[in-house]
């Protein structure tokens, strides 16, 4: 099946807390990570993320793919930054050369070479730490938060009934959408369509995806009429609704929220006073 929920009840740091408290902490963590470029600060955040990852109770075999993706994406992005030096010029002005690597071949007379500088190396390291801590904190959410509670979680975070229920509905219909997609994929493959053989530029490739995109979209539109009818017929949106499931904050949840907010203001203050800017050991 294309879509299966990763959520299970586990012995997990995250599931020990109320999901709303966790999301507030997560948002604070995200904001704080984005405030700094200093690898020493970022290393602290990466360490916290690593501890939470290990404490999430998710087996490596369950999340092998996303972990691989994070690793490959993080390394690729950092390597690209390192090789091109792009982006870093916004946070540093001068560079300290460590060594110059020069290829022993030429391409049409051009000899590839890169200047390995302290700034480039630390900037890439900073990127890697940021990407990996943000990604690993984010990837834990679908494994740890019950999809059946998304509506009540967002309602509890202050969103309206309609928006909160839209979250619930999204979670409900993602597997249906996935199944429709697989069915269309099978139907077109049975007509000799091979997704692997898509060639041409981006626009040409998107055009060649039409046999998948059009039926799936049409099906979703047709289906949505039934969904709207089903909601109308059971009095959705006529007034404030009661949510059957209730979430209750415990002491530890208040502590976590306070910790998140404290972290946010501390980091914000540090950042305002110039701490945590780009740093190299000179």
């Amino acid at each position, binding site marked *: *099946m294309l879509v299966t*929920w990763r959520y299970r009840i586990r012995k997990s740091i995250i599931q020990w807390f109320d999901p709303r408290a966790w999301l507030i902490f997560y948002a604070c963590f995200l904001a704080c990570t984005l405030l700094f470029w200093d690898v020493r600060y970022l290393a602290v955040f990466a360490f916290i993320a690593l501890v939470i990852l290990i404490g999430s109770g998710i087996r490596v075999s369950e999340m092998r793919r996303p972990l691989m993706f994070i690793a490959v994406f993080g390394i690729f992005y950092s390597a690209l930054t390192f090789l091109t030096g792009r982006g870093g010029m916004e946070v540093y002005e001068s560079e300290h050369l460590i060594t110059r690597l020069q290829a022993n071949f030429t391409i049409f007379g051009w000899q590839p070479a890169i200047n390995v500088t302290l700034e480039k190396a630390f900037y890439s390291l900073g990127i890697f730490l940021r990407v990996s801590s943000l990604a690993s904190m984010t990837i834990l959410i679908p494994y740890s938060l019950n*999809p*059946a509670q998304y509506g009540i979680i967002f309602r509890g975070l202050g969103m309206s009934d309609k928006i909160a229920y839209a979250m*619930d*509905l999204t*979670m*409900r219909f993602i*597997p*249906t959408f996935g199944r*429709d997609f697989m*069915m*269309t994929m*099978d*139907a*077109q*493959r*049975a*007509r*000799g*369509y*091979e997704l692997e053989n898509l060639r041409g530029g981006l626009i040409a490739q998107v055009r060649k995806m*039409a*046999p*998948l*995109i*059009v*039926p799936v979209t*049409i*099906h979703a539109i*047709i*289906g949505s009429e*039934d*969904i*709207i*009818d*089903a*909601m*109308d*017929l*059971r*009095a*959705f*949106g*006529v*007034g*404030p*609704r*009661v*949510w*059957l*499931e*209730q979430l209750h904050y415990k002491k530890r949840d208040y502590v976590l929220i306070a910790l998140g907010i404290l972290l946010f203001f501390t980091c914000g203050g540090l950042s305002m006073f110039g701490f945590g800017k780009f740093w190299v050991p000179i």
Partner: protein
Amino acid sequence: MAQSSAISIENVSFRYRDRQELAIRDISFQMMPGELLLLAGASGCGKTTLIRCINGLIPRSYKGEITGRILLHDQETTDFSLARISQIVGTVLQDPERQILGTRVMNEVAFGLENLALSRPEIIKRIDSSLEYLGILQLRNRETFNLSGGEKQKVALAGVLAMRPSILLLDEPLASLDPASAQETLRLVRQLTDQGMTVLMVEHRVEDVFNIHPDRVIFMEEGEIRYLGALDGLSKAVNYHEIKLPAPLIVERAAADPPPHPVQFQPADGKPQPLVQFEDVSFGYETHTTVLKGISLSINRGDVIAVLGANGAGKTTMVKHAIGLLKPKSGRVLVEGKDTRHISVAQVAKTLGYVFQSPSHMLFAPTVYEELAFGPTNLRHDPEEIRKEVQEAIDIVHLTGREKDPPLALSFGQQKRVSIAAILAMRSRILVMDEPTAGQDYRNYMEFMDAILQLPNFEAILFITHDIDLAVIYANRVLLVDNGQVVADGKPEEVLSNFDLLSATRLVPTSLLKLNLQRVEATGHFQRAEALAHI
């Protein structure tokens, strides 16, 4: 004092905002509390529009011009809110998959009650009593997506019943169910009406509904009521080609008409060796589950195979192996002697063409011509050859002149024909269909199947179905699939005479099957009811 009616419809007509013609015209009838009324008619005759008028979606969600009066328990509903109507009228839509909104059963049943802002203890009380009433309390904490079709239907019904309506509208509730699940649903409906619920049931499977003895029947045609009365009168008032009546009634009526033209499958020329062979095939989607267990069979030239079995028995998984979409975990599938593990799905498509249940899962092109050219182009046929193949396919399915029409703008029946033509254009040798009659009314699907059997290009036909009568009328071989195994493979006269086996595979003998079995010694093989009338 006379008892007041539950539903009273007085001269109701309705036209959708973007349409010229009326969808329903001058409809009048009454239903008394505790009455079960069957509403039958061809696709597009206005049944769903009538349902929407009663449950308030018209004119609140579907805008248009409505005239006449609708009364529920003697109160006119014009000024009622949907919330108020929803506590009087409960509606179960055709596709429970789209009606179920909650991720878990409990949340789904609670949905309407939460919207009515009832107290939590009251909601829980009603959830439990609805689930218990329908005998599905054990599903309370299950995820809705993983339920079977029959379970989904019951959960959708529980969600509606929890709102304590006194009137229930059921829009083709049997459409996606296997025969045994359909019978269970019908028994429930009978039980509800016996306890005082007023039920209006739209259904194509008229014969099945007859078994629970509806009090009256409405037959609609082109937006109008053509018959309203007792069951006995229906077969006389309505053409027996239009709705599926019990076989003895058809035989009675058809005796006066000329015998039907025999429909016989004439396979295209081909080699005598098997087209497809399954050799001890086993498969599971995950390592610890087994969906297919040791299947061995072959598909030969001239076969018209009906694959029967309950939902989840493994029918579709088996067929997906034949077309190479799935590869066996053990054993092998040979298509024209080649192992499907070593050839692509595109290569298999030259032998087997697969028509999916819903045409909207495959139609995408801006014109019928391009839609039909898609397959042969993928198979790298020569452009001149493709032009010929497409034109021939269009002619065979009687869509000549519609080449430039967008397939998605055609009627459902025409879309279905486009999906068959798409396979014809690929020159596949075996036609494989999943629930070929789904979504079509009786007349349309019988004409459709007659036309398919007479197509000149195929060497064999295989279809998956829940409808035993399709196997009785059209198949010359039946595969009964149960729990991942082929439990019977043979002529329909042999396989379908074993009622114990049918019951074990959640199939229910129909009146046509029973009548054929009574007469098989004289006829030699199964026939449609119209033909039996002349023997």
